[in-house]
């Protein structure tokens, strides 16, 4: 290539005083960015290959490496910044759709960071979570309309099927194919140990993981990959994926290179073929069609499992949610525009959808206004980054959250956003056996358990500070929230007061 339009975004900086030529950087970079020059007895690096995944930095035993943002600049331009210019160069060269991975990185407001929590003082005591019971258990599912009594006047158990969770967190849908076998094993084992659930995503369920069925949500997506009777029976719940926060309006895409023997078997497609999920479910063109699928799945599983419908947060999400709540679904999962993905067209990921905080607030309000909030539980995703986000989401009205990116970060992801290349150096978003090996589930699942245990404790501390000792009393408790730096409209949609009021 005679003209280099795009200068490397990142530069590898090596401190030669500390480099001992151990070559672990060379051995561990799947992008071949490092090389040992035997003639000079020196390590050298090719910045153009670096994706900023930090594998070499993390493994270097003498901390001789760091990655910095290149200070090669375009002339300052608030409108045509370097990123916009480079994207034009890339498209002029390739003629293709720009593809990106993980969640929307653009500078839109993060409402969680503009919301503050309350604490109890004087008129109401705060509660000490180390000395008093502090309950984070949640049940997801539809609640009964009326109570029924038997001949002896005792209450009958007419509760529809529920999911019981030790804390209001589940692992979000990430398909086997977009992430590796070892990543799935880590998620499944962590979910089992913590008493929560993980989600198969649209890649089907590998037969080795059927034993974690009680902690598994099986997903039925538009491509219906891997969907057969045993699959539906194996999970604790079934999720119909109508949309995904990162790419509302379009379906999933797994390149043929990632479809090896195992993926082919699990997804029930030929090896080497691209796995493209259609944009809509081709048997669901309107809300009554969705109702039909919900009931078909219930019939197929003898009404024993709750059905989840997952939607992306789009402009009329409240109306859509209202329709779903009346369609027989037990749980609605709403995915905001910050949600992650293995691969999506950049423009769709960055410009389509709504922040989850606003979507959640309006869905919760709309369902309550219509008196149907108890017909469903609400799970939110995209992006939940900490236990504070969880507490705020529950206070806005959610029953539970899904975490995707946060879980992958716990497993070692460094958010370099190159998943679509299939060369994930951390063994997460890849199918290459030599790379998948790098994620040892014995280590991975423990890190997930640690993360959730830490979050559980933090949630209890925050709840205790608010004088609440059961999470159900936090749900929808918007008086516990105040906004800062939000305008009247934003406060109105979120349904919270401004700090100081």
């Amino acid at each position: 290539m005679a003209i280099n339009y795009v200068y490397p975004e990142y530069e590898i900086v090596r401190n030669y005083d500390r480099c001992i030529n151990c070559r672990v950087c060379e051995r561990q970079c799947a992008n071949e960015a490092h090389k040992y020059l035997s003639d000079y007895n020196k390590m050298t690096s090719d910045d153009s290959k670096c994706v900023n995944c930090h594998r070499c930095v993390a493994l270097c035993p003498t901390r001789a490496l760091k990655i910095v943002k290149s200070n090669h600049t375009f002339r300052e331009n608030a409108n045509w910044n370097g990123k916009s210019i480079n994207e034009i160069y890339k498209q002029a060269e390739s003629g293709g759709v720009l593809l990106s991975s993980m969640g929307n990185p653009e500078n839109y407001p993060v409402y969680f960071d503009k919301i503050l929590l309350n604490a109890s003082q004087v008129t109401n005591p705060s509660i000490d979570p180390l000395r008093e019971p502090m309950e984070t258990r949640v049940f997801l599912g539809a609640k009964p309309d009326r109570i029924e009594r038997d001949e002896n006047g005792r209450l009958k158990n007419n509760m529809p099927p529920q999911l019981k969770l030790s804390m209001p967190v589940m692992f979000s849908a990430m398909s086997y194919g977009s992430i590796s076998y070892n990543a799935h094993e880590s998620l499944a084992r962590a979910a089992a140990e913590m008493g929560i659930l993980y989600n198969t995503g649209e890649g089907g369920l590998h037969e080795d993981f059927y034993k974690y069925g009680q902690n598994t949500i099986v997903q039925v997506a538009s491509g219906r990959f891997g969907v057969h009777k045993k699959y539906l029976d194996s999970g604790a719940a079934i999720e119909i994926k109508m949309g995904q926060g990162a790419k509302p309006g379009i379906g999933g895409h797994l390149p043929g290179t990632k479809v090896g023997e195992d993926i082919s078997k699990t997804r029930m497609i030929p090896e080497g073929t691209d796995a493209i999920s259609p944009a809509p479910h081709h048997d669901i063109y309107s809300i009554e069609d969705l109702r039909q699928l919900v009931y078909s799945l219930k019939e197929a599983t003898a009404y024993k499992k709750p059905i989840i419908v997952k939607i992306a947060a789009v402009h009329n999400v409240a109306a859509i949610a209202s329709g779903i709540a009346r369609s027989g679904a037990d749980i609605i999962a709403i995915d905001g525009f910050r949600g992650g993905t293995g691969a999506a067209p950049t423009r769709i990921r960055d410009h389509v959808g709504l922040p989850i905080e606003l979507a959640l607030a309006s869905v919760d309000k709309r369902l309550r206004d219509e008196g149907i909030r108890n017909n469903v539980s609400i799970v939110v995703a995209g992006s939940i980054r900490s236990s504070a986000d969880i507490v705020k989401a529950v206070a806005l009205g959610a029953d539970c959250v899904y975490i995707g990116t946060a879980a992958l970060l716990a497993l070692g992801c460094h958010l370099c956003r190159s998943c679509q290349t299939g060369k994930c150096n951390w063994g997460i978003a890849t199918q290459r056996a030599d790379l998948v090996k790098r994620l040892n589930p014995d280590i991975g699942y423990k890190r997930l358990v640690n993360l959730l245990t830490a979050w559980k404790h933090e949630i209890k501390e925050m709840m205790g500070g608010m004088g609440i000792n059961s999470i159900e009393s936090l749900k929808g408790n918007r008086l516990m929230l105040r906004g800062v730096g939000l305008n009247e409209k934003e406060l109105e949609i979120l349904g919270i007061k401004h700090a100081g009021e």
Partner: protein
Amino acid sequence: MREGMFRNPSGCAISGIFSRSGKRFSGKCIIDSIATMRDRSNGLGGGFAAYGIYPEYKEYYAFHIFYDSKSAKKDCEKFLEEHFDIINLSKIPTQKVPEITDEPLIWRYFVAPLPTKLADSQMDEREFVVKCVFRINTAIDGAYVFSSGKNMGVFKAVGFPEDVGRFYRLEEYEGYCFTAHGRYPTNTPGWWGGAHPFALLDYSVVHNGEISSYDANRRAIEMYGYKCTLQTDTEVITYIIDYLHRKKGLKLEEICLVIAAPFWTTIENKPEEERQELEYLRSAFASQLITGPFSIIVGFEGGMMALNDRLKLRSMVVAEKDDMFYVASEEAAIRIIQNDLDKVWSPKGGEGVIVTLEKGRI
């Protein structure tokens, strides 16, 4: 700003006296009882609920209404005439007491729903009454129905409860149950309608505490047609009890297991059948769980219930003598009316104490 436009957290005093045999007694003792706990109030609110006080009109709903102005009274009476048969109406008798000022017009009506109007509405009688009360309180400016039960009434004002009691000449009433409340709000209410107890139909609640789950409870109960116009804990607790008891058909013991539910660790250790029932109540009615400190006395036709939150963050003492049953925030408030007691104890957090008339209804 009128109460209802802002939230007014408070600390308080409560007291209740109940005669199991249905024997009616004067309101003097409840005034004496609440006066003992004067330090728990700050003079910004006091009130009483009395049961069995209108035996001659016991088939009719006794509406107690505050009016800010004569025109509000006119509008409200017009509404009442359209929806009810008004058997009797009068000013509620009061006496001038220097500590009680700025009183509104206070009127009392004994009514029964107009049969044609009731049939047209296709609701049951009690739901009809509730809907009308809400209508007056939200749509007719300056009129506020603060009591709407049969053979019972609420008497409340801004002031120390013992002064309020004298103002309403409570010692001239005779009933089988009296409850009382003294308030210590952190904001100045100024409006009589915001004082406690809060009542709807024959349910009245006096409450000492501040619930952390207020907004979660409020947003859930408003789904079922209730309007929390006062923004007080007592209001939302009353609506929850009305909802669970009247609309859902839960028994009072089951209601205690919903609003002061035992901890999951306690539930796990119960025998299987009980465990399933407790788990069912907690998950089906999760939004009606009340967390935060509270001790409440709920009055209803033919009975009374006393309940503490499950961590017992507020005081409550209960006592018995013959057929009389006493409950108060402090033992001194009981002993001042009856020092010779058969039994005195503090109920455990989350364990409701329920007493009812031995012969059923009077």
